[in-house]
């Protein structure tokens, strides 16, 4: 019985990791850019929500709604002013720039908010739970998982049912030919990073309401996100969700065996998948 509970909790935790990962997956799918500051941007969004909650007395969901366009703007500007200038065949410049940004963000947050760990208050939601047969599910983890599915659906719709998504895919295939269609690749990339930052805001909402956070936890979130993306297969949104769930389940099962093994178990699951399916579970036909 305890194992069913463990696995269900793991699946729900996987929803959070999928939310971390979807933004990374989106950006990589369109411009082959891996943003090493992705985890730190999640933490930045969590602080932004926290500030809006404390300053304006808003509920966390309202605050996230307000934070989303701000984060979109930050992502858009980051891409326009910095990242577009280093995109190219050489992977070194974007990696080093986003690595520098990661260190910069962590320390700026530390300067602004101190190293103390904080939490976004979510009132009665924090403790509410639903009983489902033998297992009791927290309302917050359930909401997280539902959001992960909704975000995946929304991105899927954006990619395959809208003109913007078509332009995303076309630019990802061949930016030069896309420009002959009147597409400005730089503008497309900026929109994509903006949208990724909206997903990051949703991830931050749940990161900040479910547990404590501090300025230094970004890199670990980046690693979970990265593992989910690779497990799922590069550029596959549903695969990313599945990857998040696998990391989540591995972690809760590991923790059930020995609490010190939680994080390690997630990494080991990733390495095992990498060993047996190097291209992930749902690889794209072409790359």
């Amino acid at each position, binding site marked *: 019985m305890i194992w069913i509970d463990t696995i269900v909790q793991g699946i729900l935790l996987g929803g959070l990791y999928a939310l971390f990962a979807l933004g990374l997956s989106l950006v990589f799918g369109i411009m*082959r*850019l*891996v943003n*090493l500051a992705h985890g730190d941007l999640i933490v930045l969004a969590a602080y932004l929500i926290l500030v809006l909650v404390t300053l304006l007395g808003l509920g966390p969901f309202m605050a996230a709604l307000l934070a989303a366009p701000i984060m979109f703007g930050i992502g858009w500007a980051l891409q326009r002013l*910095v990242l577009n*200038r*280093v995109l190219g065949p050489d*992977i*070194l*410049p*974007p*990696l*080093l*720039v986003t*690595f*520098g*940004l*990661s*260190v*910069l963000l*962590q*320390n*700026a947050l*530390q*300067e602004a908010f101190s190293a103390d760990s904080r939490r976004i208050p979510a009132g009665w939601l924090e403790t509410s739970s639903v009983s489902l047969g033998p297992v009791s599910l927290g309302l917050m983890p359930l909401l997280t998982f539902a959001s992960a599915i909704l975000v995946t659906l929304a991105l899927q719709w954006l990619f395959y049912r809208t003109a913007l998504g078509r332009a995303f895919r076309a630019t990802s295939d061949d930016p030069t030919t896309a420009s002959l269609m009147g597409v400005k690749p730089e503008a497309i990339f900026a929109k994509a990073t903006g949208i990724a930052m909206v997903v990051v805001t949703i991830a931050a909402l749940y990161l900040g309401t479910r547990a404590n956070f501090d300025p230094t936890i970004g*890199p670990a979130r*980046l*690693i979970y996100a*990265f*593992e989910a993306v*690779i497990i799922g297969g*590069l550029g596959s949104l549903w695969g990313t969700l599945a990857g998040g769930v696998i990391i989540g389940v591995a972690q809760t099962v590991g923790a059930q065996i020995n609490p*010190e093994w939680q*994080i*390690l178990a997630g*990494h*080991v699951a*990733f*390495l095992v998948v*990498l*060993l047996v399916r*190097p291209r992930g579970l749902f690889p794209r036909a072409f790359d």
Partner: protein
Amino acid sequence: MARSSYKVTTRTGASQIAALVAAVLLVAAIALPTFASRSLIQDMFFILTMLTLAQFWNLLAGYGGLVSVGQQAFVGFGAYMLFGGAILWGVDPVAGLLLAGVAALVLAVPTAFFAFRLHGAYFAIGTWVVAEVVRLSVAQWKAVGGGTGTSLPRDARDLMWGVQWIESAFEVRSSEARDILTYWLALALTVATIGGVYWFLRTKRGLALAALRDNVEAARSVGVDSERMKWIVFLVAAFGTGIAGALIFLQNGRISPDSAFSVIDWTAFVIFIVVIGGIGTIEGPIVGVLVFFALQTLLADYGSWYLMILGALGIAVMLFSPGGLWGIISDRTGLRLFPIQRRLERRDGLQQKEVEEERP
């Protein structure tokens, strides 16, 4: 044209002067403990070990195109093997350095096996995951203190090869003698690293590596085996990084998983040193480590501001001057202290002609 009237050379006037200056500096550095204060010795130790780490990371990323963010795995693992060897098997720490290098080399085999399945940026995070796995595993190793870490046993510290000789020769206490010994070891390691990297880059293999960095397709078409080159570079860098890591913690005397596997200390700082100094050159990390040390000395009291400035500086260099400080210097002056490109030179020295394979 008589063939014999030309020779292929890599020497430049500046490189010969540089070699002379380097020899003088080396003699002064060896003699440093006879007149310098203990804090200067410690500073020099820090500079030399960071320089060694930077040279190896530069070999990986700047020449091999392997951008690793997981070199702390080898720093930490090497250091832990030195501590483990001393505590469990009574291995002398100086011999433990070699053990550390070999252990890091062994660890590098499975690491490369996994990480080479990932490409480009994903390789970077892949190495980071491996470093995390090693850190979390070592934290389970109770004999070396688990998650809280441990100190080097007093016997191992004070009876280490060479310490007693230095104590009597310099008439210093054993802690100071240890600093002098580790400083000399760091100096030897740095010289061996720079010399080794320079030698390697001038060999056929090294030129192939440079060709690979500049154009994978072209290099392949002339028969450069890129997979094999990646393995060689990765294993060599792991070996050297492991020794450097062990040396750093030997001097420190204390170890813990968080300090030994710190991504900031052993990878972020190293990356900034290489990027700010100039990636893909031997001179770059040397310039970078001096700038880094100066910044740290000036800004150490400002904590996170210091790291913010370092991050911003790294970004600015990549955006506006990807060749780093050394790139600016060598563009302006044409100076090359470690010339790698071969040039055709008339034996009578009247005429010089640069050969095609010169790289920017």
